[in-house]
Every structure is written in structure tokens, then in C-alpha cells.
């Protein structure tokens, strides 16, 4: 049988993965249901927004519903995005096409972002109607809507990254635990739903309030794009083949972005703000590079050896695996600590170093206690991270706060890098310096343990490096690697 096939719903230039996800996503009952329900509620709210007496209540509901859809329901569609492919075995079939891990992950995310964009655009007429009938600030409302969408697509990137973990309970724990602890869920919801609607005067980041709207928007979009790239590349690393050199691209982009951020802070005189953003970014980047499996594919190392001594230097920073990740994270930490010391204070630089050591501590625990069979170090890292945070929250609430209320210093906080900032913040002024120095000294234990584990792992990968060397330079040499 030969029947002429026709299929022209999406153009060739769209990524195949985006086409697939859109074809599937737009047909789901969830998307249709959300779209209809959203519009039904927005029609009602728009009709109710005529009277000035209930304007605030209607605005609250309007923002709340839109935030719920754009920042929670739509991103949660990515909850099993990759896990389902892993479980059904379809990811293997995708891996055999020309789609790289990065393109697969990007497609998953882009489809959610596009559907969110469709929803956001469909909301715009209601915003205009509310401007016409309710006299609201049109551009402010449109900006608020855009920020909600932006926040939603960043959250979607986080959730898609998490979906590379097969275990449902782990994904659920990471997504829902922070929302549940201490009523954090309700708080986040309120903050997000008023985000961008003029309540930012109390922002901790003065850059966004001091600078003009255009610059703030650019920086916000830039930071969002970096965050999305971070999470998507983190996910792509988990599904990429062993011979992939994704880490080179990923780490180079992160280094450039971090340097740009610090430079921006220096140029705009907002170094203090940027240093705090950089410190947060540093923690995230460390999680990524310290959970990469040590690579034992010779061609990966050969790619570096081909480029002579610059390649050999780059290998130490950019080659896949947590061993080079340790060197890379030390470089980033040095950069950020110097910058924080310069823009804020030496004490804060020390605190940044101790916080970074907290991440090294979890990485060291993963190396000490996880089995050699663990192909992916991220799941044990998440488990240890959750465990340590629960311990810290408990200790903070049970011990640090009561001591602070009695005007005493919680000296024991030097022992745990993650707890030291709380101990330092509540310490008596006379004790601060000594506590911090002791904390820095103690925190050094973790990178040392990690360094020892790294040396063993590096030695284990030596045959692969030697083979890589021989692939480039023939049978001679490679013994010194």
C-alpha cells in the first residue's frame, strides 16, 4: 500500500525534541483543562474587577491564579519528563539518534516554556481589559506577568533537571520538602504572586531597585538564562554518553558568566550585591562539578592532549569528572572569595569560603560512604545534602537560637561549615573573629579529605589517560600521566 503521507504541523527548523514534546503536550488533558479553567476564572475576575472597593482582592486572586499556573502547575509537568523516558527505555532509542543529551533536555524544557508562553500570551487580553475597566498600571502588570513566566521557566528547568533521577521519592522530596517545611510553601507563593508588582522596594538586592528598569530586566533575564543553562546542562551531563565533552562547554560558560557577573558588579558599583549572587552561584556550580563521575574514556583525554600544553592545563579544569571538578571549584572559590573580600569584607570572604567548604564536605561524604557502583553521584549527594540540612535546621532551632537569646555564642558551630554562618551571625562581637578563624581551620579538613579521594580516583583513571596520550602521540610516553 502506498498512501501519500502528509505531516506539516511543525517546521523543520524546530528541534525534533521540541516538536515531539509539543505534539504530545498540547494534546494532554492537563494542558486543555488548565487552559479552559484558567480562562473561565480570569473571565470571572475581569468581570468582578470593575468596582474600586474590591480591586485589591481581585488583583490578589488574579496574581495568585496566574502564578499558580505559570510557576507551579506548568513547571511540574516536567516532573517525570526524563524519568519516564529512562523507565520505558525510550531514552536509549533517543541516544542513538543525532540528538545529544543537551538537545534532549533542552527540548523537554523548551516545550514546557513554549506552552507556558502560550498561556501567558492568552492572559494578556485580560490584563488589557483590567487596565481598561480597572485602571491598573498596564506596563507594570505586563512586566509582572513576564517575571512570573520567567520564574516559571526557571523552576521548570530545575524540575526537568531533577527528572533525570529515576527515583520518584527523591524527586518528590527535593521539590516538595522545601515548600512544606515551616509553611515555606505559603510564603513562597505569596512572594512569587506579588513578584514584580511594585513590592520590590524591600529587595535584598539594591541593584534591582537602584538601577533603571531596563538594566534590572536585562540582569534578571541574564541570571535566569544562566540558571536555566546551569540546570539543563546538569541534567544533560546525567544522560550524555561517557565520551561526551559536555563539561568543557558547561564549565567554560559558567566561568565566563561568573566573571561577567563580577565585572558587572565592579562597573555598576554594585559589587556587594553581585558578590552575594556569585556566592549562591558558586554553591550550585560546585554541586554540579563535584557530582560528575570520573571519566575513564581515553578519547576524552585524547581531545585535550591533542592541543599541546594548553590542552593539558585545560584538562585539569575542564575534563569531565569530579576530580577536575575539585580543581575547578577551587578556582571559582578563589575568584569569588577575593571579590567578596574586596567588595564587602574579609570576614564575609571567609564565610563564603566556609560555605563552599560545606559543599566540599557533602562531596567528601559521598566519596566516603557511597558505593563504587554509583554511576551518578548526584542522588547520594542530594540525600546527604537533605540530611545535613535537616541536621542544621534542627541544631539551629534547638541550640543556636536559644543561645543567641541568652546573648551567648554558639561556639560549637565552627564544627559544621553549614552552621557556622548562623553561629557567626548570632555570636557576641568579641567572639566573632575567633569563631570564624576556628571555623575556617576546621573547614579545611573537608577539601583535604576530598583531595585524598581525588588522588585515588585520578590514579584509577590513569590507564584511560595513558591510552588517550597514546592515541595522540603513538605508543611512546604517557607513563608520567
Amino acid at each position: 500500500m502506498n498512501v501519500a503521507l502528509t505531516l506539516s504541523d511543525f517546521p523543520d527548523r524546530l528541534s525534533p525534541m521540541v516538536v515531539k514534546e509539543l505534539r504530545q503536550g498540547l494534546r494532554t488533558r492537563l494542558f486543555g483543562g488548565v487552559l479552559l479553567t484558567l480562562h473561565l476564572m480570569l473571565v470571572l475576575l475581569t468581570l468582578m474587577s470593575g468596582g474600586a472597593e474590591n480591586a485589591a482582592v481581585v488583583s490578589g486572586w488574579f496574581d495568585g491564579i496566574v502564578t499558580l499556573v505559570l510557576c507551579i502547575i506548568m513547571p511540574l509537568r516536567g516532573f517525570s519528563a526524563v524519568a519516564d523516558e529512562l523507565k520505558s527505555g525510550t531514552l536509549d532509542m533517543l541516544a542513538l539518534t543525532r540528538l545529544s543529551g543537551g538537545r534532549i533536555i533542552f527540548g523537554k524544557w523548551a516545550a514546557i516554556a513554549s506552552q507556558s508562553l502560550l498561556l501567558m500570551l492568552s492572559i494578556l487580553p485580560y490584563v488589557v481589559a483590567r487596565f481598561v475597566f480597572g485602571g491598573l498600571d498596564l506596563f507594570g502588570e505586563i512586566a509582572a506577568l513576564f517575571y512570573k513566566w520567567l520564574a516559571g521557566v526557571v523552576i521548570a528547568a530545575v524540575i526537568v533537571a531533577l527528572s533525570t533521577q529515576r527515583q520518584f521519592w527523591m524527586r518528590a522530596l527535593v521539590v516538595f520538602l522545601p515548600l512544606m517545611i515551616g509553611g515555606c510553601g505559603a510564603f513562597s507563593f505569596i512572594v512569587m504572586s506579588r513578584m514584580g508588582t511594585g513590592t520590590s522596594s524591600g529587595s535584598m538586592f539594591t541593584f534591582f531597585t537602584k538601577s533603571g528598569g531596563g538594566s534590572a530586566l536585562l540582569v534578571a533575564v541574564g541570571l535566569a538564562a544562566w540558571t536555566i543553562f546551569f540546570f539543563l546542562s546538569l541534567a544533560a551531563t546525567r544522560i550524555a554518553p561517557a565520551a561526551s565533552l559536555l563539561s568543557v562547554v558547561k564549565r567554560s560558560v559558567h566561568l565566563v558568566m561568573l566573571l561577567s557577573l563580577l565585572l558587572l558588579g565592579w562597573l555598576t558599583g554594585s559589587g556587594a550585591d553581585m558578590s552575594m549572587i556569585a556566592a549562591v552561584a558558586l554553591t550550585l556550580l560546585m554541586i554540579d562539578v563535584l557530582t560528575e563521575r570520573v571519566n575513564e574514556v581515553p578519547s576524552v583525554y585524547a581531545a585535550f592532549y591533542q592541543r599541546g600544553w594548553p590542552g593539558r592545563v585545560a584538562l585539569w579544569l575542564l575534563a569531565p569528572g569530579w576530580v577536575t571538578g575539585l580543581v575547578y571549584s577551587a578556582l571559582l572559590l578563589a575568584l569569588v572569595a577575593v571579590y567578596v573580600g574586596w567588595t564587602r569584607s574579609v570576614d564575609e570572604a571567609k564565610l563564603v569560603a566556609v560555605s563552599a567548604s560545606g559543599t566540599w564536605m557533602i562531596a567528601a561524604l559521598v566519596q566516603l560512604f557511597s558505593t563504587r557502583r554509583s554511576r551518578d553521584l548526584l542522588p547520594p549527594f542530594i540525600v546527604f545534602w537533605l540530611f545535613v540540612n535537616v541536621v542544621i535546621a534542627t541544631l539551629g532551632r534547638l541550640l543556636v537560637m536559644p543561645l543567641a537569646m541568652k546573648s551567648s555564642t554558639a561556639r560549637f558551630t565552627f564544627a559544621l561549615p553549614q552552621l557556622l554562618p548562623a553561629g557567626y551571625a548570632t555570636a557576641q562581637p568579641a567572639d566573632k573573629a575567633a569563631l570564624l578563624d576556628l571555623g575556617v581551620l576546621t573547614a579545611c579538613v573537608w577539601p583535604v579529605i576530598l583531595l585524598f579521594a581525588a588522588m585515588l580516583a585520578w590514579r584509577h583513571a590513569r590507564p584511560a589517560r595513558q591510552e588517550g596520550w597514546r592515541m595522540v602521540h603513538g605508543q611512546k610516553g604517557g607513563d608520567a600521566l
Partner: protein
Amino acid sequence: MDRSQPAVVVEDLHRTFGALKAVDGVSFSIDHGRVVGFVGANGAGKTTTMRIMATLDSPGSGRVCMGGHNVVHHPAKVRRLLGWMPDSFGTYEHMTVLEYLDFYARALGFKGADRLRRIQEVMDFTDLTPLADRMSNKMSKGQTQRLCLGRALLHDPQILILDEPAAGLDPKARVELKNLIRILAQEGKTILISSHILSELGEMCDSLLFIDKGRIVHHGDAESMVRGTATAGETLVNVQIAGEPARLIEWALTAPLIKIEEETKRGARLRIQAADDDTLSGVLRRMIQDGLPVLDFHREERRLEDAFIDMLGQIDKNTFKPPPLPAGLPQKNAEDAK
């Protein structure tokens, strides 16, 4: 693809999962255009070996080259040559058969009219055209297998790895699949196919690879396997004569290389201490020369399943003598199997 080298070369392949040695020194090679059956019990190491060959897993040690490209060093080049059909796989919800194939064709780099033309060819070949608008997750097992085969054929791969393609299929779907594989073999594709239905493999394959506990224990053609040459070096022959069977028994008692296995109503089953065609035809010639009225003389062939089980039994008793592996490959794992 470099045709001066074998299509598939696996050398001293090892893969462990913790303490479990899933693949333990596997070596074999497959020439271009050959259809090779891969046989082994569950957990013998078939799927792990096939996944490594398909670049979906990494070898612990050893070398695997597909079409002359190392699977670890050049996975992208290998993937272009390779069609992979896994033992279990899922389809997508909310996606028709046509959209499913369109997605994979896009992912393989086909564009515009070229893409639709290739999809059309594959759908015609696998007889999926009438199902073009059917949801891909609402099809029978046989239809799903055909869809998966169609997907694997989209980029016209030269090497096909089919892991249990006939598992769970009804007899009709099995015959359809077998016919498709036969056509692909005629087109000159190199095919490695694993299956539990050994009789089917015997019909389809040029040679068989038997794997047990992560080691290759036999690499040869199905014919030698069922005749028993690979394991025992002797042949069972069923002979019927006109008249009294006692004449045959008398003759057999005096003939060299022949033992009586069992007397039958019209003759006997004879065990001949040889398996080559010349010796067997010589025995028949002697019978006729000695005046035996032979009505039927045929070699008894064991079913492949029996041959395989016999072989596993001999390995367990350490009495198995594996035939030599193809020349140019390490012989170590065959010796280890003793």
C-alpha cells in the same frame, strides 16, 4: 563503512556490575552481510553485550568495533551505522504512528520531502501504512514490534542489533517479523539477533553464538549444532529396511564405527562414530552393497533447544569441548569454558 574489516569485532569484552561478572571475556567477529543468532539463558550476558555494541553501555575492558569504529571512542560514527531494537521499550502517548516515525526521522537528520519519502518507504516495508493515524501506544505487540523495527531502519543502517524481537509475539506476528528479517538479510545487512526461540534462529541465521555466564561457549552454524558435531562428534541415523529388521541388526553388529542405539519396528536407530557427510554416505553405500533393502536412511537432528541444553549440561559437568573460535580472535574464553 570499511568492508575490509569484519562488520563487528568484539575482543575480550568484560563488564561487571558490582560483584557480578555480566560479560567475562567475550570475543567474536561477524562478517558483513551475515545473520548471527545470539543465544543464551536469561542473565547470560546477551543484552549487556548488545548494549555495549550499541554504544548504550561502556565496556569494563576489551574492545568493540562496529564497522571499523570503536564504540567507546567514536560512538556517534557507530550510531550512524547501527539500528537497535531493544528487548523492551515503550512508545509515546498522544502520538500517532506517523508522528512517531516523523520524530525519529527528524532526530536522525532527515528534512522536508526526503523525510516523508523515507518514512513512507519504512512504513510500506513494515506494513504500517494502514496504521499511520493509529496512536502508537494503542497497538498490538506485533504492530509495536514492527513500529520499533521501522524506527530502527529509518536511517538505513548497515548493522542491525535485534534483542529478542520475537518475544511475546503470536505465531502470525512471528512469521511476519521473520519474513522482514529475511528480506533485510537478503539486502546484505549484518544482523545480530537474540532470541529464546532457537528453532527460528536456526532457520534465519548463518551462524549461532552461544553465551553462558558471560562467556561465549560456541560460535558456529546451526546445522553442526543440531547434528551434534559441535558437542559429541557422532551421528544418530534412523534406518528402515524392507523385510526383517534382524538383517539390519546383524549387519550393524559387524560393521565398524556403528553401534545399535535402538531396534525399531522396521529397522533400527544407529549411532555412527562420525559426523562428516563422506562417512555417512559411505555407510549407506556399504548397506546397499551388502544387499540390505534400505527404504529410509536419515540423519536424526536434535532440536536446537536440546543441543543447547546438552551443551549447558556438559559445561556444568566440565566435559564440554568447545570448537575453536573463528581465526584471528583470542581463543582464551573458549578454553576458560572448559
